[in-house]
């Protein structure tokens, strides 16, 4: 009986993604005839997805896993097999729940944010949300890298559609274009990576004995014994040693990750993407597009664990991004901009965790972040509704009394973001830093990542509470802030749900407490321990140790935890000291040139636009001129020469019959003479 219900759960699992797809179709074609512009279909679909995901999670909790092909695009004998499949293991089950939950809440919130505000184009909006949920859910349960790429790209399309939702204005279409282009640039490397992995291993399966991480591991194990490159067996490594080649492959896929997860230097699209409707921002940053990159690394962690170089780079880029983005968030005036940079920063932490060998920690942070960032964005959305679509924090203030539900939910999210005990972010961020530290004591690159991550905590605490204080505390600074718009239930319900989650979800993996007390309360760790062989935490730890040569220093987690908490409190305290009064000053003005630099985002946009203009448009103009003048010039030149010579030669035709007769006679004479000379008549 249990077996059949398990099988049945897995049978219906594709519906998790199909339901939002159906809502996409309904909203697109029938949205304008439906009440609420198709919102109800979306809510029903994502609600259904959520229930199914929970069922799958329960089934997986029972120890069952699923790894099957469901739809074959192309089957080619003796060559690569392109198919869609389902990989349901603890990681994907967990992620399915997160994505469908956030997506469901975002749909619900949109009722308040979009419908009640008299928005036009609602069918388009809900169709976009449905397609977005579909793409992301399918991405999550993908069983091979090809399928991941397919839905990774679709996620990009959806972000374009939704960021550019208000297409009648100038800025949103431009931001949408930028988001798509920058992530596409990253996806280029991902595409090369997918094709190269196909060409190398003949498969892109994530799991099973025929999967590419397993094959790579075997190849390396073989190479370790014999001479370099000899052990690669039948794998074609394109002239490189297997270790080097696998690192190259890792980097190629990482390109897509850096683009989608907005890591330095491809993070520039994300702050611009704030042009989209706020619920969309919540969806993009909390659970879908940006999360896709990090999730991909986690999904193929068995492959990355083989390459210490790739891991170290991931960790360093992550740590750097965490610090870099956090510093920019410090000076922003727009509430959504602060959240945007905090998103970049938090994903930096996840990358740091993955790179440092903290697989569980990174997944943990992915989860907690999904909840508290969705909460913060929806909270910001609520504030924006209340403020009649004004987003400058200096125009707010004192909203605490007017919007109590929003305030407490937002506060919970902020405490989680800043990493204050015992909110969710504290546990997960602390675990990442702990992992980075214990592995980093033997590796300077990781240690660098750790130190940057540690520094970023102060910034995080500061900008988070600057945001909270400016928005909710003090005296209202404008008329709008004194008379905010009231909020409906569809806005409040998601905030409450997420607020509760942001508060308590960290308790599922309290590593420091577990270490201190000896209790087995690291539930997430346990959750990720079972599953498909080769995709478990034990396996990753083993590979990290044997292949990548990671070794953990033995260190109590308590001290680092206290350290990071102290730093977070220091940052928060600084913000309190500066901005807690009824009418705070613009303290960041005192930073002078540094503020200008930070406001301009270290001129990242400028140099990237410069590169794009010079090497894109510039080269394009140049080749156009070359094409018009040289290539087409040659073609027209040939025709010119023919015309010109024709024009000259036709002058022989005078129109005077006598001349023709003369020519005729001369021609005959010449002909006779030459025939005669050749024939030797005159000799």
């Amino acid at each position, binding site marked *: 009986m249990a077996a059949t219900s398990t099988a049945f759960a897995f049978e219906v699992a594709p519906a998790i993604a199909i339901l939002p797809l159906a809502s996409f179709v309904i909203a697109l074609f029938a949205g304008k005839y439906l009440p609420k512009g198709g919102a109800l279909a979306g809510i029903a679909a994502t609600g259904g997805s959520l229930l199914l995901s929970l069922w799958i999670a329960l089934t997986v909790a029972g120890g069952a896993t699923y790894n099957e092909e469901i739809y074959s695009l192309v089957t080619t004998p003796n060559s690569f097999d392109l198919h869609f499949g389902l990989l349901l293991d603890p990681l994907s089950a967990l992620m399915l729940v997160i994505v469908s939950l956030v997506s469901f809440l975002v749909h619900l919130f949109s009722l308040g944010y979009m419908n009640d505000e008299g928005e036009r184009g609602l069918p388009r909006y809900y169709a976009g949300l449905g397609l977005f949920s579909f793409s992301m859910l399918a991405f999550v349960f993908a069983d091979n890298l090809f399928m991941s790429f397919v839905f990774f790209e679709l996620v990009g399309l959806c972000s374009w559609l939704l960021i550019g939702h208000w297409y009648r204005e100038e800025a949103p279409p431009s931001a949408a274009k930028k988001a798509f282009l920058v992530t596409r640039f990253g996806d280029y490397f991902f595409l090369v990576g997918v094709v190269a992995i196909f060409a190398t291993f003949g498969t892109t399966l994530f799991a099973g004995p025929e999967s590419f991480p397993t094959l790579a591991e075997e190849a390396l194990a073989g190479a370790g014994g014999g001479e370099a490159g000899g052990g690669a067996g039948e794998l074609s490594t394109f002239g490189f040693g297997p270790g080097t080649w696998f690192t190259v492959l890792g980097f190629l896929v990482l390109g897509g990750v850096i683009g989608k997860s907005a890591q330095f230097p491809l993070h520039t699209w994300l702050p611009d993407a704030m042009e989209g409707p706020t619920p969309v921002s919540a969806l993009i940053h909390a659970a879908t597009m940006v999360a896709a990159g990090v999730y991909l690394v986690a999904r193929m962690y068995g492959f990355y664990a083989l390459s210490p170089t790739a891991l170290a780079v991931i960790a360093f880029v992550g740590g750097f991004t965490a610090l870099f983005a956090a510093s920019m968030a410090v000076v922003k005036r727009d509430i959504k901009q602060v959240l945007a940079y905090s998103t970049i920063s938090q994903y930096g932490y996840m990358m740091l965790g993955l790179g440092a060998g903290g697989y569980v920690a990174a997944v943990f942070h992915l989860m907690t972040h999904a909840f508290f960032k969705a909460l913060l964005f929806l909270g910001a959305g609520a504030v924006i509704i209340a403020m009649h679509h004004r987003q400058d924090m200096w125009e707010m203030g004192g909203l605490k009394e007017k919007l109590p539900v929003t305030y407490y939910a937002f506060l919970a999210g902020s405490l989680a973001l800043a990493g204050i005990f015992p909110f969710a972010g504290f546990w997960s961020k602390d675990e990442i830093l702990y992992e980075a530290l214990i592995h980093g004591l033997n590796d300077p690159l990781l240690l660098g990542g750790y130190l940057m991550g540690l520094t970023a905590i102060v910034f995080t605490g500061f900008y988070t509470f600057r945001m909270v204080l400016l928005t909710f505390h003090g005296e209202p600074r404008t008329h709008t802030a004194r008379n905010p718009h009231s909020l409906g239930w569809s806005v409040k319900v998601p905030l409450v749900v997420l607020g509760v989650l942001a508060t308590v979800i960290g308790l599922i993996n309290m590593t420091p407490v577990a270490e201190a007390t000896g209790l087995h309360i690291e539930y997430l760790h346990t959750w990720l321990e079972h599953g498909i062989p080769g995709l478990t935490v034990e396996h990753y730890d083993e590979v990290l140790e044997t292949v990548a040569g990671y070794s953990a220093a033995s260190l109590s987690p308590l001290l680092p935890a206290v350290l990071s908490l102290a730093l977070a409190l220091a940052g928060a305290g600084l913000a309190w000291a500066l901005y807690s009064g009824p009418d705070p000053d613009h303290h960041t003005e005192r930073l002078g040139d540094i503020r200008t630099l930070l406001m301009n985002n270290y001129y990242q946009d400028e140099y990237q636009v410069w590169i794009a203009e010079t090497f894109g448009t510039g080269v394009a103009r140049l080749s156009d001129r070359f094409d018009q003048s040289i290539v087409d010039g040659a073609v027209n030149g040939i025709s010119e020469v023919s015309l010109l010579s024709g024009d000259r030669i036709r*002058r022989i*035709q*005078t*129109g*005077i*019959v*006598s001349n023709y*007769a*003369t020519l005729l*006679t001369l021609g005959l004479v010449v002909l006779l003479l030459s025939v005669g000379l050749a024939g030797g008549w005159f000799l």
Partner: protein
Amino acid sequence: MVAVQFYLLLSAAIFCIGLFGILTRRNVLFFLMSVELMLNAANINLVAFSFQYGNLTGQVFSLFITALAAAEVAVGIGIMLVLYRNFGDVDVTKATTLRW
């Protein structure tokens, strides 16, 4: 019996007279007459060789050419009349519009 060479010489001479006429004259009428001379030169050749080899084909051809010449004169004089009507003259160098 006269040797064929003499016929050929006669033919060449008449041909050259005709050619000279075409190259030097401007009047269409002279053109036409010169062309007739050249055609007859060709006829003499044909008849001479026909006589030489005892083959009648050449003589038959000369009859054809005579017929052709008659037709040509008809057309030629027609052209001449049109030329006169259009240019007020029968000078061939005046009618130069038929070019490029």
